[in-house]
């Protein structure tokens, strides 16, 4: 059984594609994330505000799309993104104040 993960596609006000992710990303559910990313093309903003755990399997999915994505990430995830080097390849935003914290599953 895979770890629950919610993926909600949408658009940014500027028209950029947006994928909002909620839950924990680990090796049991990276294939779901990978499929969702593969189904989009062009620039994509990935909102990880509601993700409080991301492991190296999840990172590798993000790496394969690094050249076309931007990330919005919870500060807790920043060390992982930095250490892995993903922060050097993509732009990372922190969530705007007032954004509700990620629900814990």
């Amino acid at each position: 059984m895979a770890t629950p993960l919610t993926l909600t596609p949408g658009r940014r006000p500027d028209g950029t594609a947006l994928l909002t992710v909620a839950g924990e990303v680990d090796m049991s559910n990276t294939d779901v994330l990978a499929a969702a990313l593969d189904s989009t093309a062009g620039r994509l903003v990935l909102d990880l505000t509601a993700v409080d755990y991301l492991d190296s399997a999840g990172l590798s999915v993000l790496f394969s799309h690094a050249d076309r994505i931007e990330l919005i990430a919870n500060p807790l995830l920043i060390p992982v993104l930095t250490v892995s080097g993903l922060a050097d390849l993509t732009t990372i935003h922190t969530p705007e104040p007032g954004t509700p914290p990620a629900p814990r599953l």
Partner: protein
Amino acid sequence: MWMAWGPRLTFFCNAAYRRDTLGRKYPWALGRSANEVWAEIWDDIGPRIDTVLTTGKATWDEALLLFLERSGYPEETYHTFSYSPLRDDAGAVVGMLCVVSEETERVIGQRRMATLRDLGSDPSVVRTEQEMLAFAGRQLGRNPRDLPFTLTYLFRDDGSARLANATGVPAGHPAAPATLPADGPGGVWPTAAPARGESVLMELDGVPFAGLPTGDWPEPPTQALMVPLLQQGGAPHGFLVAALNRYRPLEDTYRGFVELAAGHVAAGIASARSYQAQQRRAEELAELDRAKTAFFSNISHEFRTPLTLIMGPLEELRGRLAGADEEVREELEVVRRNGLRLNKLVNTLLDFSRIEAGRMQAHYELVDLAAVTAELASVFRSAVERAGLGFEVDCPALPEPVHIDRDMWEKVVLNLLSNALKFTFDGSIRVRVHAEDAHAVVTVADTGIGVPAEEVPRLFERFHRIENARARSNEGSGIGLALVKELVGLHGGTITADSTEGEGTVFTIRLPFGSAHLPADAVAPAVGTADAVSTSADPYVQEAMRWLPADDTAATAGETTAAPSPDASTGPASVLPAPAHVLIADDNADMREYLTRLLRGAGYRVSAVNDGREALRAVRTDAPDMVVSDVMMPRMDGLELVAALRADPRTASVPVLLLSARAGQEASIEGLESGADDYLVKPFAAAELLARVRANVELARLRNHHARWRTALVDSLQEAFFVCDEEGAVVEINAAFTDILGYGVEGLPYQPVHPWWPDAATDPDGHRQVADAFEGLLREGQGRYTVPVTHRDGHRLWISVNFNYAQDPDTGRRVTVGTFRDVTAEHYAIQRESALAALSLRLTEATSLPEALAGALSELKDLWRARRVLAAVFDHGDEPTLTATGTPPAWQQLPAERRRFLADLRHRPLLTPTSDHTGAGVLLEHPDGPLALWIDLGDQRPFTGEDELLLSLLAGHLAQGLVRTHQIDQQRETAITLQRAILGPSRLPDGFAVRYEPATRPLEVGGDWYDTVELPDGRIGIVVGDCVGRGLEAAAVMGQLRSACRALLLQDASPARTLTALDHFAATISGARCTTVFCGVLDPGTGHLTYSSAGHPPGILALPDGTTRLLEDGRSVPLAVRPGRTRQEGECTIPARATLLLYTDGLVERRRRPLRAGIDQAGEAVQEGRGVAVDDLATQVMDRMTPAGGYDDDVALLLYRHPAPLEVSFPAESSQLAPVRQALRSWLDQCQLPSQTAQNVLVAAGEACANAIEHGHRHAPGDTVRLRAEVSADDLRLTVVDTGHWKTPRPEANAHRGRGVTLMRAMMRQVTITPTPSGTTVDMYTRIA
């Protein structure tokens, strides 16, 4: 717990009950009615349940014996439980709840421990085997539950066994025959296996086992265990038959208990047997020694004086009655002969006494042994011929001279000849001397009656006489041959006897050539020719003559001194009491011989020397009646000799006749002026010489009558006698002085410091004692001292000296006259007593075997003032374990000679000391094997018979002490093991660590305990308590309180109410009053702790910030002091990463120190280790708090660190990652870490788990992965273990996998990955900021 619900009393239980109590009845029991489930004990519990259901009142039973059939057989079990009613909503009783804890192991463990302790508690160390067995039997008999009956059989020499003790079985029962055959059929119990040291489990079926006693049980035992009573290094003493409790399985602890019990019995037997053997041996040695010493001292002291006073007057009487009638003279002759005989006997005994005491004054000189022996033999010729026997003397010259002491040799030969003559009636006596190898061989053979073969070995025993042997005389003490053997031995020679009954006897003496076998200081330079036979031969010949048919015995009486002339007026011998002794000094051999012949012919006893110096020495040694000296001699001439003699008060009165070739008045005047008594010019007529000699001798005798009496009396004194001049020089001594100290008159005067003073360098103590006494002697008029002195041969003596001032009547000078006695024996007897006492004290004080041995060695070292004492225990192979005073050397570092000596000691008999010039050794038994002991005296001090006796006694004592200490050691181990088995829960909840340590001395377990109880709601009860007192009694009280407290907590998880209830319980148990208890209930999730203290020292909480808090709320008085008073509770929340310490006062209480200081010290100890894993911390605290000599009270200690470590095991599937993460996240919350730290740990753990799933178990999905996380104050450790192999990371092939390890290393401070064939361990660690 379990409950019975509804009208059928349907049975329900929780998991703990299922696991611990239900056994094989699960799952069969579920849903059945309680009376079906517990049918076998329904008689016990049914009435109780009825009571609960009908009255609604709860029941309470403690450690109730129940026979459960949960393992396929009725089993002896003990349970503490309470039944309480369960009510429905309407309040009606509809069922009951049982809260129960099983106590089988505790109850049985306590029972067995009590038996073992009682076995080991034998208060009297010394007892016979019989008493020991009876004692052991009483103890075994007091445990009829574990040992329904026992039989103790001991092996006899023929392999059969006898019943030595039985418990629980009546005498004469067929299962307990009084004896068992060595082996084979017919024996009830097989003896072969235990004889080989093996245990046997016997099924008790068959005829002899019908109607067996049942012990404490309803049914007789069905099995018995036969255990050998093992003996160290030998076949078993016997075996113990222990009937087994049929209601318990024979598991390891039961078997171990029986073996330990047998071990106690075996140790007791070994101890009793070895004690008796050693005691007997030591007593025999001491008795023998006492008897000998007493006998010889009595002889010497009591006989000499009266003999002197008989023989002196007798000689005078003979002289005076020379003209009396024949009858009177014959009777006087009888008196004189028997006086001489008695004197000879006393002298022989004294010789023995001297040999024994090492005081025989030997002067070995090189002589022509053949000539000397031939001459001695010739003395007997007339007696032998008169007896009608042939006398063959075959003494050709030997290739080299032999060292002998003339006096001793005379005694040897004369004794043998006298013996031969006494037992030979036909045939001949033959004396032969020849050389063989490097020995001179002397044989004395006769054709006498011979000796029966069985008597030959005893020929040389003292006082041994062959009964009913035909002899020329029945006189004899049976001591002559024994003396001969001793004397030959002193010469380094051997004597053997060959005899055939009816044919004759041959004695063969072998003496080595050379002098290497003799003490160097007793060897004199070569003297040359054989001298005349001394007068000592006289009594032998006279005695022999008396055995022969009556003849003219008087004619032969003076054989060696030449027969007195028939005309009494011409010879001096007839008027003088004894032949006068004349000393001749002349350098011309012809003149010497002429004078000798002349004077001897006239009846004098004559000795001759070469010059003045020799003459002076001879006079000082044995003052003659007269000196005849030439004037012209080398080295010292006659005039110088006279001057020297006159200058010495002891020799001033010896008359001197000078002979000179110088004629003329002047020469004569010169000679007389020098002090000579007479002067004769050569050539002189024989008659002239004899006349002058006779005149001078008679004159001198008259003059010296009083002086001679004084000398005779002084010499016969049993005490040593001496005279000191004003400067302290010893100028006169008597024979006893020489006997005791070895210094003779020839060395006079002895100037201070006297040569017998102990050496100032090696024995400063002894030297000072003598110096003090000597100063007293010079300064004070009189006094008495007991001081150590050194015999001339180097051995140590103790003498008791008395002295007094006197005035020399001749010179008017003040002199000191003293006497002394040899008190060595008394001194050593006292020393022995105190040495034994000191050794005993050392052995009692020791708390371990090595300590006992080391203490004993140092005692021995002090006693003998030894350089070193060394003990080699041959506990394995040929290389022993060494113990020594000072640092023990390695075996291989010892000189090869010493190693060989120690190894050889092993083959000597036990407790028989052996010594050489550097020290002494002895073999004794050590519990680990034979112990060779070496006392290194270093210098050339002799090790005397006294020393050997003392060493033998001490070694025996030491062996006993070591066995005892060894037993105590074993008992200590046993006691602690059992106490720990009774203590504490078998499984500790996570996060806890506990310790128990008994007091060091006196070694005893006590009443301290700790306990943890897992409560039904997930909380944990924590108890630390301390019963008053020590020993088994306190341990029993402790066991009951512990069980009660457990049960109460299970029923009601409130510390205050638990202690309140425990107050009531404790009030009913004697010895439980004033017990202190800390009782708490901990929520391991939140760290919330409620607690209550009954007079117990406060708990200590070490916080992660380095501060310390004490749990001082909820305090009240100790148990049962105010029963009924409600107790209060305190509460606190243990912060994350804090450590709680609970303890008993033994940890912190020290004499002369406030309790608070100890508590603070304990707090610091915990704080210091707040970063250490909790189990290591427990060890660290116990070590740090140990006082210098070990704990003098017992200590219980309990530690808890919050939160407890997290342990998760999960199957290697990716779906498990989320739940594991969830568990870790909530544990990290409990740890109250900064959120980023917690996130980092979470990521690192996630990566490690993912690796384990993806790689470790790629071939075996579903295998178990284990994660453990443990936190301390400042750091956190995380471990993930799988059972598979990881791939070597290859980031280029699989980019994100390499990233996983990188992430782990980035998130944690340290990461260690350890792959092994059986799996991979990831160990990660981080600091908490």
